[in-house]
């Protein structure tokens, strides 16, 4: 059975190029988040105020006379123009060559060892801003990579928690029925009665804003899981209700297997296919939820980065006009969400073609 699924999966990768691309994108994004310290040239909070809103740095491959050169970047300095816009001009003759594995700022590699080796950097005092810089001259590329840690993990952890809750509560509700079922159903209705975003705002506002980012991070996960389990539990309950009547469950019950064991060993595993698909397609909801909160300044706080709070700069149309690159984090959200949707769609094809699962985004 599982061998068959695996074979299907490999075949799927070969056949469905979009799926393969989406999966590849996700793997790449997650890897870069895990190895953020290594991949990003700078720390998320390392700033250079003299480089406020530095535009993306072009990387040159030619030496200016048509010949090839080791890739390099130029130094840029700004002047305020008449409009008090920062106009960055390359410094004549400056040439900072790119370096592989240079020593940069200290970071913790996978929580194991302290190191300074980074994937790439620029020699001397040069700065490389692949995606431009923010108002305090922090490298947007590095911040996006670091921000991925928050945005990407929040989906995974949040989904795991709500799935667990949904599975257990929905399972119990469907299996036991009666009063318990009734109570749980009402509870689910209460949660689903309030628009998720309002609930998110109200819950968030009930706790102090001055928490550290780490606390806020866990708190957001908890809030979103708290909201997210309800709809899952409802589906699981329905599935359990119908599975409960199936012969193999009946058989187990007759032969005296205790209720919880039946639920865990016989009923819930049968919902696994639905679950894997539901998990994949609900992850974007969590990513978007966190982004929306952070976008409104209620989530992860500066100097820590998440894709949502990086987008705060884009809230201002004027900033967008002056520095269009502040929209880039949005592109990353879009890519991630799209990839998850594509993967979910393909997984549904092989695992659970019966159910149309919708993610139910918070925003």
């Amino acid at each position, binding site marked *: 059975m599982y061998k068959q699924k695996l074979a299907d999966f490999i075949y799927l990768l070969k056949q469905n190029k979009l799926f393969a691309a989406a999966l590849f994108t996700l793997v790449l994004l997650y890897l870069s988040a895990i190895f953020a310290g290594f991949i990003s040239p700078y720390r998320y909070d390392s700033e250079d105020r003299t480089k406020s809103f530095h535009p993306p740095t072009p990387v040159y491959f030619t030496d200016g006379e048509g010949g090839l050169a080791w890739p390099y970047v130029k130094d840029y300095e700004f002047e305020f123009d008449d409009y*008090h*816009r920062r106009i960055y001009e390359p410094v004549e003759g400056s040439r900072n060559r790119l370096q592989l594995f240079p020593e940069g700022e200290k970071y913790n590699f996978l929580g194991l060892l302290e190191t300074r080796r980074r994937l790439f950097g620029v020699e001397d005092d040069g700065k490389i801003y692949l995606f431009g810089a923010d108002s305090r001259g922090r490298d947007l590329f590095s911040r996006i990579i670091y921000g991925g840690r928050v945005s990407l993990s929040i989906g995974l952890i949040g989904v795991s928690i709500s799935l667990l809750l949904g599975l257990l509560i929905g399972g119990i509700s469907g299996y036991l029925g009666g009063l318990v079922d009734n109570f749980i159903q009402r509870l689910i209705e209460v949660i689903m009665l309030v628009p998720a975003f309002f609930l998110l705002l109200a819950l968030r506002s009930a706790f102090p*804003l*001055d928490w*550290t980012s780490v606390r806020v991070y866990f708190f957001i996960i908890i809030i979103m899981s708290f909201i997210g389990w309800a709809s899952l539990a409802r589906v699981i309950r329905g599935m359990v209700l119908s599975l409960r009547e199936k012969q193999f469950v009946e058989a187990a019950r007759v032969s005296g297997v205790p209720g919880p064991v039946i639920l865990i060993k016989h009923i819930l595993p049968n919902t696994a296919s639905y679950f894997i698909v539901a998990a994949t397609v609900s992850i974007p909801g969590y990513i978007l939820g966190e982004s929306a909160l952070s976008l409104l300044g*209620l989530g992860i706080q500066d100097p820590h980065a998440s894709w949502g709070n990086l987008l705060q700069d884009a809230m*201002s149309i*004027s900033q967008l*006009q*002056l520095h269009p690159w502040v929209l880039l984090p949005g592109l990353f959200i879009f890519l991630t969400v799209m990839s998850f949707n594509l993967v979910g769609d393909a997984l549904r094809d092989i695992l659970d073609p019966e159910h149309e699962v919708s993610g139910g985004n918070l925003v």
Partner: protein
Amino acid sequence: MSLLLSFFLVGCAPPTPPDNVLNLGTISAPKTFNPVTARETSSTDVINQMFVGLTTTDGQTGAVEPELASDWESKEDGRVWIFTLHDDLRWSDGEPLTAADVVFTYNELYLNFDIDSSARHSLLMDGEPPQVEKVSERQVKFTYPDPYVPFLRAASNPILPEHLFADISPAEFNYAWGVDTSPDELVVNGPFKLGRYESEQRVVLERNPHYYKNQLDDEQLPRLDKLIFHVVANTDLQVQRFLRGDLDAIGVQAQLYPVVRAGQERADFEMHYSGPDLGTLFLAFNMNTTPHPETGETHIPEHKLDWFNDHQFRRAVAYAIDRQMIAEVVFNRLASPAHGPVSPANEEFYYPGLKEYEHDPDKAREILEEAGYSDRSGDGIIQDEKGNPVKFVLLTNAGADQRVATAEIIRQDLSDIGMDVSFRQVEFNTLVSQLSSDFDWEAVVMGFTGSLEPHFGSNVWLSSGNLHMWHPYQEEPVRDWEREIDELFAQGMRTLEPERRREVYSRWQRIVNRELPLIYTVTSDTIHAVHSRVKNAQPTAIGGLTHNVEYLDVR
């Protein structure tokens, strides 16, 4: 989809506006049209176009000017104030406006403790209200127990019609003249009356034909037929709507300046620079040594209080802050370093001789070293003499971009001199409740919108004040310089002679500049962008665009 929709609707261009209407933006809708209970600028900005008081402030010089009162005199060194009203003043419904209205407004409204009057505070002298009496149909007398000089500026509070409110109970009055009031019921004495209020969208004001300046110089004043305040939810959208021509004038924040300036390429408007604005932006430390009444312990650890109360510590911080950088990064170089509580915009009281704390991290480190703070453990963070690492949390309110960015720069500057500062944004209400009732904060970046009259800041500067942030509600001033400031403020409000008054408040500024209870950062510039069709626009830092609203003309 959106494209489809766009094509579908793109044909409908907005029509041209009718003549002589001035369109302004406001961040949020007025909450009330009641001048007495109005608490925030979104309401008072509109109300001030409809109601005037006895005096007013000259938008150019900041001096007190006559308004409804043609004239006034002070007796007994400023204990007694007698105002004489213009001839033949009328309310917008045609009723005469007399001294009785003035007496009623003060006695029954502003000074009535059952009414939520936010102006009352500035009318009280050491908590004592004045006696307000009618001398004649055109004369009103205010008598204080002691000289109270700031009263002249407080007398600019709007006057309300007695004939509408004579029998109203205070409880009713608190809810009277809400935004749903019909235009006929809103009887005004200012240049404009309410035309209509489109809920949460715009307030349309129309010319008040009974405005007392109406026939001044044989000209109909105000010149505008209508003045409209459009609710545009944020400054960014205001800029966009201004550039589109929907609004005739906007105040330009430094961050948005480049966008507005660049817009000049396609829209016909002028930029008006009016120098530094009245507001302040500062860093404060919690110096509150009063123990908690129940636990008997201080609100934050004592060793931290020791640092914050250490003058040398604050001096070092003052030197460590790179004000130029704040001006550059946060304000696009449209701000100047500030070192005292009074902005240069306040020409009357600004004391130019304050010590300037130039950015000098070396000096800061030196001061700290001398005062016993040094990095003994070699981890890059300084410790005090008892070995406690200097580590604290810097707060500011979330959503205030300029403060957040400033706080971030300060955090960085302080870590450069070895302090371990973490920065957090807090919701405004939570922050205020921390500052004024929980007292468990450590450092904060805050700002005040300034006032021309230093005395109106007494909530901040008196050691007993609730906004005396670093150590509020003191029964007796704990620090000598606080006692000195208390005395100066008591003296200042009793000093009538301008030159001497200025001197009193100069001394206050010097003390603040030396003792650094608040460490000032920068003052931003005031810039207005005004469409060329608006004639006579002379926006200033003090009066904004509307200080000469009756002479504005849109063609």
